[in-house]
């Protein structure tokens, strides 16, 4: 460890204050702090600090994402081979999926982190760790056959427009990962919807039945999957969104570590269940009569509410606000699914919509606190 430390200090010398490459210090620091927690001590304020930092927080989210990602990789291969027919092993499926997905992850990280590093150097602040999560989320919510250059363009759009244009990490209004998906969705619709995009290499196959369940329902078709398959995730869909089971494992990690807001998750589930139940009573078309329980396990709902809606920067920030925000995400998700057959998956738009309204929700929650205080002042003046 000492050897490594000395070596690093040597490498960092030309980047120190007053030296030649001072401007590029954030870039080297990012690598250094990835290896070592720095030796910085407290200067003002509290003399001791919690062990948690943003790196640890973000890495915890990545750990929570891994079960869904691993299953997504397997499911990519599973969908591919089961459409082809014939025998295949778990390993075959996994390797096929990995060949597809790992390049997407690499592209997402390389493009996104390059932009983040460039902005850190330009603005003279340290590299924020937020992109570690965003960079993994983006490929996880894309259809598997999307070309890599589209991933790159969507990432660039999301980081530049959704994040850095607003002032960087902590300042963005929209969830960057969802912005990337929304961008791809509207810019390249043929790659983002239909019945050919959800199964790996489907375009080179004949007679693929690779519709998502929501897509089938929107076209008033018949769903051939059991609720167990929907829950376990062996259905077509974006890479990591299909397995509610493994997403719940991730959610458990997020809630147990206190990183993800259980208020938002629970609120969304309640909101969606309520809305789904109402539509069940109405039952005018096949999407409406699709059981509210099934609504919770198909499509991107589970992935969206666990990993996207809970992004602390773009979600509501007050405890009360988080409840309202979560419930509305759930309600709007089902409403968009049912009323808007052009967008069979409602969760992306529901979360983006609520991202925009989150500051308004917080505003009213905080205004409540302010009004209470002002009322108290007024009554104190009256009695005085």
């Amino acid at each position, binding site marked *: 460890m000492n050897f490594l430390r000395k070596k690093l200090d040597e490498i960092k010398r030309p980047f120190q204050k007053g030296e030649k490459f001072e401007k590029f210090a954030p870039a080297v620091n990012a690598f250094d702090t990835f290896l070592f927690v720095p030796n910085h001590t407290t200067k*003002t304020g509290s003399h001791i*600090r919690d062990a948690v930092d943003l790196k640890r927080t973000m890495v915890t989210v990545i750990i929570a994402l891994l079960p869904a990602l691993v299953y997504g990789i397997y499911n990519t291969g599973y969908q591919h081979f089961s459409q082809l027919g014939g025998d295949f092993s778990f390993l075959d499926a996994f390797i096929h999926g990995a060949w597809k997905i790992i390049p997407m992850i690499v592209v997402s990280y390389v493009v996104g982190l390059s932009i983040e590093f460039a902005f850190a150097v330009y603005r003279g602040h340290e590299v924020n760790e937020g992109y570690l999560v965003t960079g993994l989320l983006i490929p996880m919510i894309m259809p598997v056959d999307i070309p890599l250059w589209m991933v790159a363009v969507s990432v660039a759009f999301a980081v530049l427009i959704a994040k850095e244009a607003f002032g960087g990490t902590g300042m963005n209004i929209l969830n960057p990962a969802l912005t990337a998906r929304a961008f791809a969705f509207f810019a390249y619709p043929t790659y983002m919807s239909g019945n050919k995009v959800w199964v790996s290499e489907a375009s080179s196959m004949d007679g693929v039945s690779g519709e998502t369940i929501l897509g089938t329902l929107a076209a008033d078709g018949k769903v051939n999957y059991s609720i167990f398959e929907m829950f376990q995730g062996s259905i077509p869909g974006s890479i990591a969104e299909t397995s509610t089971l493994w997403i719940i494992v991730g959610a458990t990690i997020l809630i147990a570590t206190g990183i993800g807001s259980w208020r938002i998750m629970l609120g969304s589930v309640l909101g969606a269940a309520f809305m789904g139940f109402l539509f069940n009573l109405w039952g005018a078309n096949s999407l409406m009569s699709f059981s509210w329980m099934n609504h919770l396990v198909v499509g991107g709902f589970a992935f969206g509410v666990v990993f996207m809606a809970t992004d602390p920067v773009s979600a509501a920030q007050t405890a009360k606000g988080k409840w309202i925000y979560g419930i509305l995400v759930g309600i709007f998700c089902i409403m968009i699914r049912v009323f808007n057959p052009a967008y069979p998956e409602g969760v992306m738009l529901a979360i983006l919509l609520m991202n925009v309204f989150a500051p308004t929700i917080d505003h009213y929650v905080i205004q409540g606190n302010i009004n209470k205080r002002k009322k108290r002042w007024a009554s104190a003046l009256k009695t005085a």
Partner: protein
Amino acid sequence: MSTGIRTRRGAKINLKGGAEKILHNTIPSETYALKPDNFFGIVPRLMAKEGEKIAGGAPVFHAKHNPEILFVSPVSGTIKEIRRGAKRKILEIIVDAQNGDTITHEIKQIDTLKPEEVLEILLKSGAWAFFKQRPYGVVADPKADFKSIYISAYSTGPLDVDFDFLLKNNKQDFQKGISILNQLLPGKVNLGVDANFKGFFENVEGVNLLSISGAHPAGNVSFQIQKNDPINVGEKVLEIRPEDVLNIGLLFSTGQYHAHRTIAVAGGSVGNPRYITAKIGAEINSLTKDFDIDDSIQNRFINGNVLSGATVASNGYLNFYNNLLTVIPEGNDYRLFGWLPFVDNKIPSLSKTSFSWLFKNKGYEVNTNLNGEERALVVTGEMEKVFPMDIYPMQLLKACMAGDIEKMEALGIYEVVPEDFGLIDYASTSKIEAQEIIREGIELMIKEVG
């Protein structure tokens, strides 16, 4: 009269090196210091010169904008040195303790003193400096109307002192101090005590007893005021520390200014943490001689607790308002992959990304490492967990950063002081300096609103 106040928010951080309840006698310090910086909102005007011989209780400086407020010498002796910093700002006034006279004020029948007579004695003896005023925690303005007085004998900060132990040998004088406060503001004295162990405070007369249960910062006066009777715009409240109530009791029975300070010397670097008796402004070197402080490592000496105290040199002096001297190791070393979750579990963490909670009862060994680097504010909800007041801390901090006075006012700046945000500093994932931000916010309020 007794009021119960409880909260489930906040946190207790159990550190190694808590002071044993033993009162250790040390040889009195040879020099003492008065530090104008200890008095928030005061610009000092010197009243004594270097080399001048002064009596105990003689004024050393007064407040520039309020010459009635005197700051007096805790001992008799000679002004040894006036230490100045940049722009000739007075940092410390060092008094060399020597045998000599102590000023005695004439106090007529105590029981019949009117509020203004009590105030006059407090002012001319220098004891008025014991009072801080809310909003803002500045030295109190003697001309203001005060709504009430708050004393918190419930200390919740890490390694904080036990006021029952500290004062129980001086019950009568403490009671006397309380009676004097009652003469200053009849029927408006509030005493916050630990609901689970009230000690002798249970029998103190003439106070509204606030039985507090909950973790830090429940011992802070701000919290107790807000739960009992929150401060409204334009209102002012007095705050005084328990041992200074005793000092006031002694002042009124002897006529002399008393500057007792029982200090707990505690923290991971202290070999045998105990209590000692001293006086305000005593030399730290002389006090800590018998405490086996591990000097093979770099230590940080803190006047106060690890959350809100002030760094002081090991050859520096005690501050005016604290009963605790904490010594912990500096943490200027690297940790390989220390940012991974569930790594280095010996470092206490309020987040569940560490198993540190398993060692809660053992007492943590902490150092001053920042455990990360400052980042943009990302995580939400963590501040509210350690902030028991009916205030949105993150929004208030943002209002302070933006310098938006109207918003700061509306969000409750009148009800807080920087140390209420100590745990927020500690718990923050983004390593923000919340106490500093609030301090700057309060300075802005004083400048713009007054």
